[in-house]
């Protein structure tokens, strides 16, 4: 799920995805190359992401580097997951944050 959200609306290669996962989790989640690409494989196989032919990061370009972006299905799944998590946060915000102050 982290990778799906890290790709977001952009087209990102593996290292950019790794950095974005670390950023959105505040450094709590740091994925290695194996975790990144085994998950990318699953997401590709499930049709949630696809490989992009564009080269949006020419400064970091390399023949071996491939870029990935969300498919329509991937965007729908990511949006659903965000709504679900948001619902949980809204439901417990009262006692978990305001109650602790």
């Amino acid at each position, binding site marked *: 799920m982290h990778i799906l959200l890290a790709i977001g609306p952009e087209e990102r290669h593996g290292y950019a995805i790794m950095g974005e996962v670390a950023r959105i989790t505040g450094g709590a989640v740091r994925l290695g190359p*194996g975790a990144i690409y085994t998950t990318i494989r699953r997401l590709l196989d499930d049709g949630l992401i696809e490989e992009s032919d564009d080269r949006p990061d020419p400064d970091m370009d390399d023949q071996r580097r491939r870029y990935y972006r969300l498919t329509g299905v991937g965007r729908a799944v990511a949006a659903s997951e965000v709504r679900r998590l948001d619902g949980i946060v809204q439901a417990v915000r009262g006692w978990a944050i305001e109650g602790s102050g």
Partner: protein
Amino acid sequence: MNQPEPSHERVYRGLLRLYPSEFRARFGDEMVQLFGDQLRDARTGRVSSGPAGAAHVWIRTLGDLAVTAASEHARKDRTMAHSLAESPSMATRALGLIGILGGVALVLAFIPNLPWIWDFVAVRLVLFNVGAIAIGLAAYRTGALGSGRASVTVASAVILANAWYLVMGIAGIGRPQFPEADPDFRLIGFFAGAAMWLTDAVFGYVIWRVGRMARWVGLALAVGSLFAFTGMDRLELVRGDLAWFWRPAALAGIAVNGLAWIALGIAVARRRRVAVVSKAVVHEPVTMVDSTMADAASVDGRGISAER
């Protein structure tokens, strides 16, 4: 000109052999690239990775590799077709096991110093034929011979020919050198043997051509059986001028035949039968990343498959 790969990346590329080859071929270059990016940023301080820099990246990467390589191996056979396929039934497993025992019985003939009394030879042949019949039946049941009339014909031929030789084997128990020593059965014995070896060869060839199960074992069975056929006494090949070639070739053919039945027994006992999948199932969004996401997707309920 291509730059030589730095040593750290070369070592990491070697370690990628721990992943399944198909996964490595697909993502290996990208993983090495990503690992190199991590090392570069750790050395230049662009990304904070603690005091040890490259060593820290290596430690994290080795842990990542150990976990994900193992999980990828565990996962590699679990394709959608695999998960939709039926596990081999107990009957198929039993038939495979009988086939293995039959092949072992034949191969035992090549181990010296066993009690080669005639009855044992006859019993061994009976076991071998029962095994071949079992494999023929199991291969047909699991679709390894393809479909339609041709598969029925091939399976029937190999089963009937081996059953014929089985009857000759049973008749030979307690009758030394049967059927060669009995003029009434000599010719019948020859045709039974010829039918067995030739149908075994056709059976192996079809396994190879269809390619759904252990296809190279099928080819080995076909070639081995043809050589075994040439070793039949009435063909005189093993006694002619080229006996120096045909005799060992025929014996090798028999051995290959036995080993192939063992391998086919293992293959058929493990073989899953692919279930018929309806169009409705195919058009569903069949897999999600995990159950949480599947729940989220269904809650969303906006027809995800339509957005594809």
